[in-house]
């Protein structure tokens, strides 16, 4: 089995121009808790997660600021940094004490397309609590999905440099890949990369406690006026339920539950043809993955490629 230096997905950091509107939506409706606020900067936690925050919002032109991953300890941080240096990966900064909210020790690099990734350890964790029955708030960040104008190259970067594995892929009828679901631990996917017209955020997905909480939460978001752009349904790749909405800033966000955990010793990846609707949606009730849904999730072109965020 692959020995990986990355242990798990920590958080996503986004910049949005209508910062307060986006933050208020995530706090008042989506169900995250603001745990630290600085001018133009908000750190949002999920009550069910021991991560100090799972989403950071910053006021600026729309972009993905970075995606944060956890590493087990300082020795692994240095081992990963040495490995990436040897592979000529471009660094934003070397391993160092992190001075932002929740601290820790780590470094940042650009991935193959210029997205910023952070690898850290030793940060202050938060006391998680069990989400109550029927409580319509996320338990944790489930996964992050990017659009890429160069799908195979983008995905290969995560395989070559971070030892991610492809769990499953979606393919076009002609056999070309459309989307790769990638894992860095037994969770079916923490990162996925979709073929798009440009590099951008495809969506962020948040894990709910169970079906009842997923349903209650989705109903609440519908009442908030947010548009449900795809769902409710259940994916074949990952076996998770889904309901996708658009945030005020036009970011696609998902409530999901029951994302599968794979046995890495025996798991064989599948290639699922999107023409077979049941590969997208086991129930077939959530509409075909159409041009429209794809367009809704193309998002705006990421303005942050190969540009490090100020924090």
């Amino acid at each position, binding site marked *: 089995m692959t020995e990986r230096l990355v242990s798990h997905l920590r958080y996503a950091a986004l910049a949005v121009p209508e910062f307060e509107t986006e933050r208020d939506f995530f706090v008042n409706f989506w169900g995250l808790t603001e745990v630290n606020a600085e001018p133009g900067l908000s750190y949002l936690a999920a009550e069910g997660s021991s991560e100090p925050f799972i989403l950071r919002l910053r006021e600026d032109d729309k972009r993905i600021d970075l995606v944060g991953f956890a590493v087990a300890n300082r020795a692994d941080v240095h081992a990963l940094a040495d490995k990436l240096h040897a592979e000529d990966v471009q660094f934003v900064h070397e391993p160092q004490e992190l001075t932002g909210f929740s601290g820790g020790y780590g470094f940042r690099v650009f991935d193959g397309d210029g997205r910023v990734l952070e690898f850290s350890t030793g940060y202050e964790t938060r006391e998680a609590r069990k989400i109550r*029955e029927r409580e*319509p708030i996320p338990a944790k960040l489930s996964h992050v999905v990017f659009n890429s104008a160069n799908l195979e190259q983008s995905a290969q970067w995560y395989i070559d440099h971070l030892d991610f594995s492809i769990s499953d892929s979606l393919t076009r009828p002609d056999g070309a890949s459309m989307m790769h679901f990638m894992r860095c631990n037994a969770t079916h996917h923490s990162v996925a990369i979709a073929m798009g017209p440009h590099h951008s955020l495809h969506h962020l997905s948040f894990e709910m406690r*169970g*079906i009842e909480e997923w*349903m209650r939460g989705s109903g609440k978001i519908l009442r908030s006026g947010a548009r*449900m752009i795809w769902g409710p349904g259940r994916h074949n790749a990952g076996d998770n339920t889904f309901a996708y909405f658009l945030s005020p800033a036009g970011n696609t966000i998902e409530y999901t539950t029951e994302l599968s955990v794979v046995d890495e010793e025996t798991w064989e990846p599948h290639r699922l043809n999107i023409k077979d609707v049941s590969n997208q949606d086991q129930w077939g009730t959530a509409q075909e993955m159409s*041009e*429209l849904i794809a*367009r809704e999730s193309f998002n705006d072109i990421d303005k942050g490629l190969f540009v490090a965020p100020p924090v």
Partner: protein
Amino acid sequence: MSRIHFAADSGGYELGRALQARAEAAGHEVLWHGAEQLDPGDDYPRFAIAVGVAVVKDQDAGVDAFGVLVLDEGAAGVVAANKVNGARAVSAASPRAAANTREVVDANVLVLEGIAFEENAWLTISAFVTASLPHVVDLGRRILQIEEYENSGTIEGWAVQLEPEQVAVKRE
């Protein structure tokens, strides 16, 4: 123990107050939304709406809450309460029927009639507030279809106005 929002019109006032006392004695947090006293000939819609609004507001805020209406005409109360966005009001004449409404449609407002037998009415409320939606995705999906229609007027899985060039392309 759950929070229960109670209301009753004149036809259900006496039973409603008796059930309120039983719910409080059982340890539930009870909020009474009227009538404040017996007022013969009063109108049920404002009670039904008040309870529906309070339940949905609590549930969206993560409070485990239910509604109970005790009315002269139960069917009329079901119609009125279901005008509240997010309310799923039902009538049930037995504990088993009440539990079933929780299990199939995550009902959140129970409507009883004032002529109901108090002991049976109490057991019906008890079943209602202790049953839960089974961990079955089909049930949740169907409820979300109702809620999508309630909020967007569609039942298609999205709530987007289609531009002509955005109409789904079906590939052969």
